[in-house]
C-alpha cells in the first residue's frame, strides 16, 4: 500500500527529477571537485552551480553559502562560530521551542559556562518580543531564533528580531530549516547574519545542508580540514547531494506559489474537516502566522501514540508530540512551553503536507480519523467524565 505521507516536517521524498540529476555523480562523474584534471573540474562546475541555486532561493550571493552535512551541523557551526569570534561575550539568547539542534546545543554550552536566556512563547506559540528585546545585553554573543517551528509551523518575526539584535551589535542566527522552500525569504531585505538550511526537508536527500553566512561576518569553522568551502568547512564535498540540494532549491522556488495555495488549501481542508467532525479537538499554534503545510491538532482524552499506530494500519503517516512517541516521558517541549494542558498535549498529532499530497489522500484521512478517535475515546476512562466536566465549565 502506498503510504499517505503527511510527515513532511520530519523528512520529505527526494523529488524524482532531483534523484535523476544526482545519480550520474555516483558512477559517471565521481571525480573530486578539487582535482586539477578535467574529470574532477567538471564536477566542481556543478557544485558552483548548486551554490548559486541555493543562494538564489534566499536572495543571497553564492559566496555566502557553505555546504554542510545537515541542518544540525549548520546550527552548531553558527552558534559555536559566534562564540569563537566573540571571546569576551558569553551570553546566548534563544527560545524555549527550538529544535534539539539548538535546544540541546545551548544546554551543553550552558554547562560549558555560557549564560543562556530562553525567550518564552504565549499560548499560541508566539514569541514574547518585549522579553526578547529586554534580554539583549552587551554580553550577548549570539541570538538564535528559529524562523518557523517544526511542530506547530508558527512563524517567528525573525527579521524584526534580527534588526533589534543588530542595533546592539549582536550576531543573529536563524534555524530556517522548516521555512526555506515553504515561505519566501530574501536576505537582501534583512540583517540576519547566519541562516541554516537542511536538504531533506525540501525534497533533496538526507545528509546535506547549508549555512548562509553574510558577507563580512567574522567566522570560525567547525570542521577543520582541507581548503574546501574556502577553508570554512573541511571535508570532501558530498557532491551528488550538493547537486541535488541545488536543484531542489530551484524546484522549491518554482513551486513556492503552489505550496502557498494548493498545499495550504489541502492543509486547511484537512484541518477544518477534522475540527468540524471530531468533538473536543483544537489547533495548537497561531493559525495566521504559520507555515502553509503544517497543522498540529490535539484530540482531548486520547494518547498520540495510540492514534499514530491506528493511523499506521491505514498507512497514514503523521507524528505526535505525546510523551510516548518521543522516548522521553514528557510531552513535547514546544507544547509545554505554550502551556497546552496535559489533557490536550498527550493527544497531539502533527500533519505536515507537501506538494506531492493529493486531495484524494486528504479526503481519505478525513474519512478515517474520526472513527479512530471515537474508538480510542471509547477506551478512555476520561472521555465521558472529562467531556461532561468540560461541557459544564464551558456551559
Amino acid at each position, binding site marked *: 500500500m502506498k503510504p499517505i505521507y503527511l510527515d513532511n516536517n520530519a523528512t520529505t521524498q527526494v523529488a524524482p527529477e532531483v534523484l535523476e540529476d544526482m545519480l550520474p555523480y555516483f558512477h559517471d562523474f565521481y571525480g573530486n571537485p578539487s582535482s586539477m584534471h578535467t574529470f574532477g573540474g567538471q564536477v566542481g562546475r556543478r557544485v558552483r552551480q548548486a551554490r548559486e541555486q541555493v543562494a538564489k532561493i534566499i536572495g543571497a550571493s553564492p559566496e555566502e553559502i557553505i555546504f554542510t552535512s545537515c541542518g544540525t551541523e549548520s546550527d552548531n557551526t553558527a552558534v559555536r562560530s559566534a562564540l569563537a569570534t566573540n571571546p569576551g561575550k558569553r551570553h546566548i539568547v534563544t527560545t524555549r521551542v527550538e529544535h534539539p539542534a539548538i535546544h540541546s546545543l545551548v544546554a551543553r554550552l550552558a554547562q560549558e559556562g555560557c549564560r543562556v536566556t530562553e525567550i518564552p512563547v504565549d499560548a499560541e506559540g508566539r514569541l514574547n518580543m518585549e522579553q526578547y528585546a529586554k534580554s539583549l545585553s552587551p554580553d550577548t554573543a549570539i541570538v538564535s531564533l528559529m524562523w518557523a517551528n517544526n511542530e506547530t509551523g508558527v512563524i517567528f518575526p525573525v527579521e524584526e528580531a534580527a534588526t533589534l539584535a543588530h542595533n546592539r551589535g549582536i550576531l543573529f542566527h536563524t534555524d530556517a530549516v522548516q521555512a526555506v522552500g515553504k515561505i519566501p525569504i530574501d536576505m537582501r531585505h534583512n540583517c540576519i547574519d547566519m541562516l541554516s538550511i537542511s536538504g531533506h526537508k525540501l525534497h533533496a536527500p538526507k545528509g546535506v545542508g547549508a549555512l548562509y553566512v553574510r558577507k563580512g561576518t567574522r567566522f570560525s569553522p567547525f570542521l577543520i580540514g582541507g581548503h574546501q568551502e574556502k577553508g570554512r568547512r573541511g571535508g570532501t564535498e558530498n557532491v551528488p547531494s550538493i547537486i541535488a540540494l541545488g536543484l531542489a532549491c530551484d524546484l522549491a522556488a518554482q513551486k513556492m506559489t503552489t505550496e502557498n495555495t494548493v498545499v495550504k488549501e489541502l492543509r486547511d481542508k484537512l484541518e477544518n474537516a477534522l475540527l468540524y467532525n471530531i468533538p473536543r479537538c483544537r489547533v495548537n499554534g497561531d493559525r495566521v502566522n504559520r507555515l502553509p503545510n503544517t497543522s498540529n491538532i490535539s484530540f482531548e482524552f486520547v494518547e498520540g501514540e495510540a492514534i499514530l499506530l491506528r493511523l499506521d494500519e491505514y498507512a497514514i503517516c503523521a507524528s505526535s508530540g505525546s510523551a*510516548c512517541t518521543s522516548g522521553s516521558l514528557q510531552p513535547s517541549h514546544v507544547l509545554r512551553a505554550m502551556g497546552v494542558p496535559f489533557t490536550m498535549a498527550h493527544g497531539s498529532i502533527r500533519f505536515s503536507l507537501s506538494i506531492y499530497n493529493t486531495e484524494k489522500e486528504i479526503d481519505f484521512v478525513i474519512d478515517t480519523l474520526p472513527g479512530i478517535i471515537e474508538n480510542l475515546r471509547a477506551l478512555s476512562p476520561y472521555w465521558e467524565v472529562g467531556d461532561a466536566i468540560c461541557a459544564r465549565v464551558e456551559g
Partner: protein
Amino acid sequence: MWEYTDKVKEHFLNPRNVGEVENPDGAATVGSLACGDALKLTFKLDENGRIQDARFKTFGCASAIAAASALTEMIKGLTVEEAAKITNRDIANFLGGLPEEKMHCSVLGREALEAAIGHYRGEAVPTVEGKIVCECFGVTEEEIARVVRENNLRTIEEVTNYTKAGGGCGGCHEAIQEIIDRVRGEGKVVTRPKVSNIQKIKMIEETIDREIRPALQQDGGDLELIDVVGNRVLVATRGACASCAASHLTLKQVVEAKLRELVWPELEVEEVAQ
C-alpha cells in the same frame, strides 16, 4: 518506532474486555492524565469466588492498552488470591515482552490489579504511601524499591522505564540511585567481608596500580595515592592529569567508580594539591 510484538499489536488493535463491569466487586483507577497513562479496572466474582468478568478502560499508548487488555484476560477464572500473585513481569511475558522503555505499562497493570483487589477486600484506598521520591510523576520510595526488587533493576534508566520516576526534571536521580543501592545491598550486607583499615589501604593501592595508573599513563598522566582517611581516598594527579581541566571528572567517573566496584562501595576520591 517501537518494536512491539505481534501480540501487543493484536491486543492494541483488538482490545478484549473494554468497558466497566456493572456493580463490580473490585474497582480501581490508577495513573493520571498528566502522567500520560491511566487505567480503570473493574471485576466481578462468581459464586465460587473466581473472577467471572473483568473489564478495563485505558488512556494511554498502544502498550498501555495492550497491557490492560492482557491483564483482564489473565485474571479471568482466577481466585482473588491467585490473581494477587500476578506481577508486572507476568503481564509483559503474556504479551511476549514489552520494549524496555514501555515496561511502566506492565507496572501500571499490576498497580491497578492490586488496587482493585484492595478495594474488594475493603482495604483503605491506597493513598500515596511513603515518601514521594519523583515529584514529576508522583512515584514513592516504596514503589521504586518494589519494582527494583521484583525486576532486578540496576540503573536509574531502568527504574525510569519501569516507573517513570526520574523521567521528568531528573532532580531525583540521586535518591533513586540510593534506593537501588539499598535494595541491591539487601541480603548482601552479611556476606560482605570485614576489612581492616590496613587491608583496605592495601586493596586501594593495588587497584590503583593495576587498574587505573596504566590507563592514565597511556595518556601521559598519572596518579599518586597520598592517604586514606576513613572512606576518603586522597590522591594527587601527576603528569598530564595535573594540568587537565577534565581530571576532576576522571577522578570521579573512572577512579572512584573503579575503587567502589573493586574495593569498597562507599569510597570517595578527593584530589589534594601536592
